[in-house]
């Protein structure tokens, strides 16, 4: 039975929460009702990446890219496109610049992307191993077992130049080589899927959309280093990813791609899932391994590195989801092919979760060396409100803010570090002039205070002290010497904290003090130019502009605006909670924010 047409429905967490599953079911029901169930295959795929416009539905072979689809649209999609061959133009993505309805390949969001890690996301049904295999799946494993052998795998990885995507960028081949060396009765392979940066969801989407790519790579690693056991450590808040991973493991076992004597090679390897409780620090590899062992998720000093002495004291390769997902392709197409992508020091692509004040938020995968400007303006479509770009935070709470003057820096591990930020796992949060850097710095410091494991004193106490000081500054209670204190504690943290979380925790604060010192000084002098810091803002009404429409008074949640048509309105500052509602609703710009 051959299908003539295919409907792909995004089954990523974002679209699922916008009723993608209802759309999927309705499409099935409609196909059945309208008698075309045998002609069209309806598939739920992984994330398309274009989360801003979800739920996404794509029809093949027409390449129709429908956005913001609702379950009620299913009837029309079946009736019009599947039966009559006519695109439902009202659902097509509409280009901002010319209001034209366009197809996938023309969409700006996808044009500069290069999808290796996300190669199968939005294309295959992640719950069907055959679809993965049909797209070159498990060829890498086959080649590893029968063609490359252990030496060959390491050689290809070395040629590829692949570096760990979890943050530090350690060459993957070298890590494997370290674990391969020692003789040990047991070794382990671990997938770090404990994604925890605020706003980051690359790893979740990769597993949701293409779980086999991780399983295949881990199996190759097990073969290469001589391990028979693997663990995927994934946070329990990712139920869909966990479910798909479970299905994938089951199917791989059924196909002889996991378990005893894989593909008749004599090599045996199996994978277990371990759920994390959501502590950010468990993304730090030593804490993660402690957690798998059943201990408190607290980092332990390195060296020895896990590659030498990891899980239960045995050599352990631990890579993050994105790193794993690259490996099957490298083995299938060769390390040389991969090495052609990217920059001198950073090969391949990087997936970013693009969020914040950006028009096209979503998952984007770009070659290393792409500039921030290309990501934000060409792919992301620029700032949502049309306001001025303030900065972009990469690396989440461990990173720093990158300002407009560096928008044209090609992004790779080294360039981001030199800008005082870091690659991190790939969260990219765009801020505009309505955002306040001091407030942002407070947000990240609060995150670090909450997520500090409490083991080492610099991080446990230092983050809390820094948070207190930044908070004081946002309230207008800061003093000039507080900036010195922040830098002093920040320095001690960077140098003396035990793990990466603590060492990088001051980055958001230190980088904003460096780039926006004047903004901090303004706060110390009692003003917040963005108006984000409520304690530094007062709302008032310009009597000359007020026409007495009473809209602000009606909207005010605490009833602190009074007046009449004739007398105009005034705000009782003593009661005002600075919610900004009056400012937002006034059509005459009569409400002033200072």
């Amino acid at each position: 039975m051959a299908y003539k047409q295919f409907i792909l429905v995004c089954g990523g967490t974002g679209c699922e929460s916008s009723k993608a599953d209802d759309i999927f079911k309705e499409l099935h029901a409609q196909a059945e009702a309208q008698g075309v169930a045998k002609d069209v295959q309806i598939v739920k795929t992984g994330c398309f990446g274009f989360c801003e416009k979800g739920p996404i539905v794509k029809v093949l072979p027409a390449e129709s890219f429908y956005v913001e689809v609702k379950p009620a649209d299913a009837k029309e999609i079946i009736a019009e496109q599947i039966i009559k061959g006519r695109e439902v133009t009202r659902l097509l993505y509409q280009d901002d610049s010319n209001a034209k309805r366009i197809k996938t390949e023309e969409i700006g969001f996808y044009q500069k992307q290069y999808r290796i890690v996300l190669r199968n996301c939005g294309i295959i049904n992640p719950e069907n191993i055959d679809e993965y295999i049909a797209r070159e799946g498990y060829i890498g494993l086959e080649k590893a077992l029968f063609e490359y052998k252990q030496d060959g795998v390491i050689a290809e990885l070395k040629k590829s130049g692949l570096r760990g995507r979890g943050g530090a960028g350690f060459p993957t081949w070298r890590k494997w080589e370290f674990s391969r060396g020692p003789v040990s009765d047991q070794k382990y392979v671990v997938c770090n899927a404990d994604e925890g940066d605020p706003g980051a969801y690359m790893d979740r989407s990769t597993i949701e959309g293409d779980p086999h790519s991780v399983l295949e790579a881990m199996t190759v690693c097990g073969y290469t280093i001589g391990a028979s056991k693997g663990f995927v450590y994934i946070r329990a808040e990712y139920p869909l990813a966990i479910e798909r991973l479970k299905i994938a493991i089951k199917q791989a076992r059924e196909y002889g791609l996991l378990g005893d004597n894989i593909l008749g090679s004599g090599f045996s390897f199996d994978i277990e899932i371990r759920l994390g409780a959501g502590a950010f620090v468990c993304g730090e590899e030593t804490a993660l391994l402690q957690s798998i062992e059943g201990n408190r998720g607290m980092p332990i000093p390195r060296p020895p590195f896990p590659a030498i002495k990891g899980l239960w004291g045995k050599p352990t390769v631990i890579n993050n989801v994105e790193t794993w997902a690259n490996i099957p392709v490298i083995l299938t197409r060769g390390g040389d092919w991969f090495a052609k992508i990217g920059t001198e020091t950073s090969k391949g692509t990087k997936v970013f979760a693009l969020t914040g004040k950006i028009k096209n938020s979503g998952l984007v995968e770009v070659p290393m060396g792409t500039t921030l400007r290309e990501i934000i303006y060409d792919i992301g479509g620029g700032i949502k409100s049309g306001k001025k770009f303030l900065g972009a935070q990469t690396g989440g709470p461990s990173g720093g803010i990158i300002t407009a003057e560096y928008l044209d820096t090609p992004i790779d591990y080294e360039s981001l570090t030199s800008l005082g930020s870091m690659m991190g796992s790939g969260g990219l949060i765009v801020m505009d002039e309505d955002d306040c850097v001091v407030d942002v710095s407070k947000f990240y410091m609060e995150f670090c205070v909450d997520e500090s494991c409490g083991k080492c004193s610099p991080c446990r106490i230092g983050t809390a002290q820094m948070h207190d000081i930044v908070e004081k500054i946002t309230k207008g209670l800061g003093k000039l010497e507080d900036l010195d204190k922040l830098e002093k504690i920040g320095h001690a943290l960077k140098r003396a904290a035990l793990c990466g979380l603590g060492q990088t925790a001051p980055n958001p604060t230190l980088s904003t003090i460096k780039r926006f010192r004047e903004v901090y000084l303004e706060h110390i002098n009692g003003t917040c130019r963005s108006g984000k810091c409520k304690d530094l803002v007062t709302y008032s009404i310009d009597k000359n502009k007020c026409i007495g429409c009473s809209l602000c008074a009606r909207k005010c949640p605490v009833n602190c605006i009074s007046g009449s048509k004739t007398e105009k309105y005034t705000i009782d500052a003593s009661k005002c909670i600075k919610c900004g509602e009056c400012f937002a609703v006034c059509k005459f710009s009569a409400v002033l924010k200072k």
Partner: protein
Amino acid sequence: MVNAKINGIPVQVAHGTTILDAAAKMNINIPKLCYNDDLPAWAACGICVVKVEKSPKMLRACCTPIEEGMSIITHDPEIVQVRKTVIELILSNHPDDCLQCPRSGSCELQTLAADFGIREQPFTKRLKGLPVDTSTKTLVLNPEKCIKCGRCVKVCQDMQNVWAIEFLGRGEKTRIAPAADVALADGPCIKCGQCSAHCPVGAIYEMDQTQEVWNALMKSGSEDLTCVVQIAPAVRIALGEEFGLPPGTLITRKIYTALRRLGFDVVFDTNFAADLTILEEGTEFIKRFVEGKGELPLITSCCPAWVDYMQKYYPDMIPNFSTAKSPQQMMGAMIKTYWADQAKVDKKKIFSVSIMPCTAKKHESGRNKDMYSSGERDVDVVLTTRELARMIKQAGIDLVNLPEEDADSPMGPYTGAGTIFGATGGVMEAALRSAYFLVTKEDLKDVNFTGVRGISGIKEARVNIKGTDVRVAVAHQMGNIAEVLDRVRAAKAEGKEVPWHFIEVMACRGGCIGGGGQPYGATDEVRQLRINGIYSDDVKSTFRCSHHNPFITKVYQEFLGEPNGHKAHELLHTHYEKQPIYSK
């Protein structure tokens, strides 16, 4: 061996040597706070940071092994600045009540603050107001003072395998607490006090009872109260450390003098009771081993923390336990019965104090009704070595230069066998010296059983008594016990012959000389010196076997009758009961 440079000076050290240890060999004592010689590096405090060439961050000297070609800088202005900031941060979470703190003067944080010249606290004080736990009446847990160095947790879990203390909460809310957040007394705690001996600050310390003793001494003059004191074997070689003497310095007779000058009416020596214990326990062993009456192996019971542990974790071993009381409790019972009769003192008017190297002894003195065998509480108050040192200092007594006096008769004189109770293997050695005699009615030519001595965690030996091999094992430091007992359990379960006939167990590393109530700063080096001090006392003793103690013979003749006889059982033996690990 690996070659490296520290501050530009070449150094060659064994593979695996940490930067901290290598630097110490070059006379650089890198400041540190959480690190302790007994424990694997926990790497929490962040004070021992150093720079290593090519490493972008500072590394912790405590846990970084030296690698070939490493170039290390242990101090420069930046390193000192970072360390100072970290200390200031720690102080911002620490109460400022040094003057009322039990660790004032011995506090490692206080010392660091002084060394780094901390003159102001730049950061906001952030205290939690956490409650103090005094539930054990033995140890005091004050989490407010805790600096989260992790030593107590590691000691309790890894060294002692007790698991009574744990970190709870995360981030800034992290606190040390009894496991499961119950009161310390309601959990697995065995009161060994190793947590208090390792705590660098005043977060865990012994319940101070010196005032109760001062109060009693006051009444000894005015209200016809007789204050009797005993000192344990391990006190005599460690107390001197509090007064500037090297570890292991034997000052028994100066301590007797000091106790009299503090106001005690009668000074006895627990070593005498140790000799008594050997007669009782030795006889018990012979009954089981030769006559087959009772379970083998016989396991020693003079360590109260071990008794607590066994009742909670190995209650199936209760039949193997020696029913002989510990020397402290035997002495307590004898003071308020035999001696009270002899001296014609009303036992109700006796205040009995013991000076112990141990915190668990405080708990033991009220453990069950057997500890009231005289009809009164046999031992009224137990002071640790540290508490006695404080009393001597309060009294202004110049301990080091005191004249030497003897203990009182008849329960003062002791043998070498009694004194070695204070060291690991000592009880076993003392028992073997007398067991040989009890079986053969002959004395050993060489009383030294060196196979059971020394600091290694588990020691095994075979002793031939007239053609029969006695297999013995000695274990110390609670965490080493499981291996021994699990082998016994397994053999019993399989119906095989048990691997040993006689087992000595001490909860603390090194035995009582390393007890939880001893002067701070015990390392294996210090422990060995203390052990040496104990054995020097043995060697110079007139009598080296308990059964040779003429006063022991006298008390049996005059009062007790036969070892393990009716009266002895009444006063000198006890019983054990299974205890829940968590009582709530």
